[in-house]
């Protein structure tokens, strides 16, 4: 037993050290999982995740940003459309039309016709808790169907949630 004590002590310290290391590694992996919505909105995949549209509601205003696909959600992707018409289904309220108008980010050098941010205003947005919107957009030169699900987001490859 006396001879085994030093060995047990070293083994204990090694287990403790490796345990701490693996805790850190696990933490690091969790940090890199999921796509980040950089404006605090919800992400909705475009096409086969060639891009996303991030949507956020502030009072009576809906702001949408077209951003990159995959983990590239920190990169704006300007599109040529000046406005985008959405057919919005709100539970209990039927279908409505919402027009997103280009709102260029001037500090990013954008202008109408080369713009990644779109804004729409409507009184009913103040009280909406959930909706689904459909439209079409030419994104990266290809016509795509747009499907926006609020507040869960739309990401069929990684599950409903956007985070």
């Amino acid at each position, binding site marked *: 037993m006396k001879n085994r004590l030093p060995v047990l002590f070293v083994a204990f310290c090694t287990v403790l*050290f490796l345990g701490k290391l693996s805790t850190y590694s696990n933490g690091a992996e969790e940090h890199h999982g999921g796509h980040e919505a*950089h*404006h*605090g909105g919800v992400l909705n995949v475009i096409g086969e995740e060639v891009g996303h549209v991030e949507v956020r509601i502030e009072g009576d205003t809906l702001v949408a*940003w077209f951003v990159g696909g995959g983990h590239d959600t*920190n*990169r*704006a992707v300007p599109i040529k459309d000046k406005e985008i018409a959405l057919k919005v289904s709100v539970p209990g309220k039927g279908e409505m039309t919402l027009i997103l108008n280009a709102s260029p*980010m*001037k*500090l*990013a*050098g*954008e202008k109408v016709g080369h713009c*990644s941010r779109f804004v729409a205003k409507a009184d009913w947005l103040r009280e909406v808790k959930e909706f689904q919107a459909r439209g079409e957009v030419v994104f990266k030169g290809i016509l795509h169907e747009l499907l926006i699900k609020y507040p869960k987001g739309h990401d069929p490859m990684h599950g409903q949630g956007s985070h």
Partner: protein
Amino acid sequence: MSFWRIVLKSLKHHHFSNGLAAISIAMGVALLVAVYSLKEQSHNTFTQVGLGVDAVLGPKGSPLQIVLNAVYHLEDMPGKIKWTYYREVEKEPIVAQAIPFVVGHSYGGFRVNAIDGRFLTEFEYLPGKTFSFSEKLGGQGRPFIAPDEAVAGWAVARRLNLKLGDTFSPVCGVKEGGPIHEKDILRFVGILAPTGTPHDRAIYIPLETFYGLSGHPRETVIMAHLEEYREISGAYIKIKRIRGGALHPGIQDLKFEINQSDRNQLVVPAEVMPRLHNIIGWVDRVLITIAIMLTVLSALFLFFSLLSALREMRRDLALFRALGATRKTIMGLVISEALIISLLGGLVGLALGHCLIGVGAHFIKVESGVDFSAGYLSMIDWLLVPAAILLGILAGLVPGIQAYRLGVLKNLSTVS
């Protein structure tokens, strides 16, 4: 013969092995002291979050480099931004204050920052605190007004022994030996009261002075007069607050928007510095682990060396017992020997560790501009004596117990 004289005689008798044990303990302790001191000093330097700067508007490049240059007066800025772009950002509704600056000069090893005068009169480096020239607080003079005036941070004035009225010519660049703007003589009209922040470590001159320094090309000189061509290194941005003093949430949108531009970016120091701490934190932990392992190995060496010495001294110790020494006294002799070796190694290691910092600090200052002090007392300095005593007791415990159990008759019997 007194107890301590016997201990000292025993130490002398095994001076080689005891000396080696003390040296190995000293080396482990020196490494531990040096690493811990550098860790604490760099933590103190780099963890003052924000320092009044909510964001830095700068050129595209490494965000860490921009924060280190703009906030900590280290590194170089990776480029320039246009004055007209800065003015657009200044007009943003959530921007409370935007202070432009230009870097790229130095004097006496300290950075010379050309900056808007509002920095010295309106900028809050900590919540509710603006820079002061009050003599009661350790400052002197006033902010600069004329183009040939300058203000020194408190640490700069102390290191270079500056007084009001002293003059200097800025050096182009931040490394020693750069060309001097000899024709430009600037006069110190103010010394800032100490703030305990990196702002103490810089010299400040008027923004427009930078463009007119002799030797600058005409393209730089006209920037003073024509805004459309003017360039700056960056700007300190303060964001408006909402209820509870929290940053306006629009900062994320503003950051996203600016970061999409080709030439510019908005960097938030509070987001960048934790990443640096994570990297450095792991380097610290590895070095401290190595130092602790070295010290523990040294203690093991001491332990085996005492065991070996005990085998040689069995007859002597048995003789002491026969002459009236108690078991406790014999045990005490062994443990005291271990204590003295451990304490000696610890104290030598402490001195060596601070010398290491002193030597290393010089090279770190030359290469990176970060100042470390050899005289800084970290947590390890205060714990060292108790730790050395504990280490000595632990190393001497088993040999001491063996000495306690020593059989008198058995060890005094004639060896045939």
